[in-house]
């Protein structure tokens, strides 16, 4: 147990950026929009959060800027997919290319700089609980916020009127339209909220976790988040388990490297990507052939108000 505690604690911390992106994508996909631009949004969030923190000296302001940038850029995706009825797969890839490029282009000047980010703030009393305390309650405030967010989203999606509307937009937009609600507006809103969360996940990497900016620093975490939405069958709690699983693998891999091993580094670095394929295969086999349980029925399909289906 003594050996496990630091690994589990590290798993939570390094799983948190993936968790934010995954939660955002769950909201977006629940509304029927597939956003494959998470990787690009995370990178833009990481860059803008870092640079805004450096300029203002306030990491919280940095995070806010990152969220704003994520919302603005995902609005492009919403415009193309919701208003113009464009192909959502290709539009998401375009967001990733654009975000990767723009963050590298603008971020060139910030490589090697340092900031004072957000540090660890243990929760009084709770941190004293044996095992659970150091694993769950000895982190930075964004980790705690993500716990609350998971709980909130579980409740929001399953038990509120807004949540019902959200699910309906992704399952049967025509019914939502008939009920007098604005499908376009809802899809814009959830795409932008999801983009904001993805950017926040990216900013967590640069402002809290590493406190530096490196080109391509997300290293595929955005794509892992897309996979985790499927693995978590669009459920925030399962998504959290998935994110911490990947965080744990990342933490373990660092520890193996630090302990000195004969396994070459590139082979160790493959682990998360191999694991992503493995969990996807596992969940797909479990659900049998055909459509996965939980996938919104209208996911990826544009809605044209004036046309018949």
């Amino acid at each position, binding site marked *: 147990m003594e050996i496990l505690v630091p690994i589990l604690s590290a798993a939570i911390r390094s799983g948190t950026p993936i968790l934010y992106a995954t939660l955002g994508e769950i909201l977006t996909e629940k509304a029927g929009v597939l956003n494959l631009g998470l990787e690009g949004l995370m990178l833009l969030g990481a860059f803008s959060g870092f640079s805004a923190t450096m300029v203002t000296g306030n990491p919280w302001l940095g995070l806010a800027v990152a969220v704003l940038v994520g919302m603005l850029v995902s609005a492009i995706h919403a415009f193309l997919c919701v208003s*113009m009825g*464009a192909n959502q797969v290709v539009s998401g*890839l*375009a967001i990733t290319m654009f975000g990767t490029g723009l963050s590298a*282009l603008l971020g060139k000047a910030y490589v090697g700089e340092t900031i004072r980010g957000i540090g660890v703030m243990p929760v009084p009393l709770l941190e004293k609980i044996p095992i659970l305390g150091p694993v769950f309650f000895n982190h930075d405030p964004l980790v705690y916020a993500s716990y609350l967010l998971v709980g909130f989203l579980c409740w929001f999606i399953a038990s509120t009127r807004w949540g019902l509307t959200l699910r309906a937009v992704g399952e049967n937009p025509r019914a939502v339209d008939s009920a007098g609600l604005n499908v376009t507006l809802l899809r814009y809103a959830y795409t932008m909220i999801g983009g904001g969360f993805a950017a926040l996940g990216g900013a967590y990497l640069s402002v809290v976790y590493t406190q530096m900016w490196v080109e391509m620093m997300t290293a595929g975490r955005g794509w892992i988040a*897309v996979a985790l939405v499927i693995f978590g069958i669009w459920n925030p709690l399962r998504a959290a388990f998935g994110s911490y699983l990947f965080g744990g693998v990342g933490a373990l891999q660092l520890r193996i490297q630090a302990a000195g091993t004969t396994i*070459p580094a590139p082979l160790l*670095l493959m682990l998360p990507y191999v694991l992503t*394929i493995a969990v996807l295969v596992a969940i*797909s086999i479990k659900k049998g052939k055909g459509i996965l349980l939980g996938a919104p029925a209208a996911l990826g399909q544009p809605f044209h108000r004036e046309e018949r289906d």
Partner: protein
Amino acid sequence: MSAPFRVERRLDCPAWLNWAIPVGAVATALLAGAVLLFFLGVSPLAAYTAMFRGALGDAWGLSETIVKAIPLTLAGLAVGLSFTMVVWNIGAEGQLVMGALAAVAVVRYAFVDSAPVMFFLMFVAAALAGGLWAGFAGFLKARWSVNEIITTLMMNYIAILLTEYFIYGPWRDPSSLGFPMTAPFPAAARLAVLGGTRVHVGLILAIFLALLFRVLYRWTRWGFELRVIGNNANAARYAGMDYMKNVLLAMFVSGAVAGIAGMIEVAGLQGRIQPGFSAGYGYTAIIVAWLARLNPVGTVFVSFLLGALLVGGDTLQVVMRLPLASVQVLQGLILFCVLGGEFFRNYRIVPVGKGE
């Protein structure tokens, strides 16, 4: 008060739009890029002039553009094939890398002096490596409907790390003074070049394959099945077309062509593998395929255009000291504009009051 215009669905798309939309999209993207350059404190006019001169202004630039268009054409054909049946092979980059690795393996372990035999072996090995790499994702999709977008993308990361393993480890050239790269290819493993340029016979292969794909889509039974599945998978099933078989086959062929692109790039141009040898051809290929509307002959021309963009980006890096990422931003912008432009293929905007 309502808007002074309304959006109306087109019944058919006029022919002129087929070229006007891509041209308009690229122009709009360049305009958006100009705004961005302006805010970066770079004169857009000077930047675009430098790019144009660098890529198309002289014989050297033109040959470099063609050299880059070769892998782009092959990878563009590869992803276009899978997109035609609405299977998303995003992994051309990894398949290309695997093809290049296979070519290096052949050079390392097959001791042949005859150039044609060597070419044949490298060709087959690269096609198999790329084909199996994509075919694995195709199998997972066909058998258990595992999302191929994510599996092919994850396999890009794995392929690139595998390359790093080999070039930092067992395949590192002992005479490279510690630089991570494989040993240079012997003359027998290099493709012939045309004239005194760097353009290699891969160009002929790329154009040949584009024409072959054209024939495949237009006149063969398999090409027909691919198109029907892409248009309406249910109709295809009713017609008795085997979806699983077609997914597997399409992914294999798609990966094989991407693998050949990697082999051609190594054997024709670079003669060895080193970090970052691919310049993201597999990702740019997605733009190529989409801009060409999955048309094989169009792919050749669009590859030339995007090849010019890549060479222009190199020039920009040298002349204007702008990072290479600026090209990636432009590529993203082009893709946005192409997607936006598709709208005008299906809809038109008419003033209210007319045509009621």
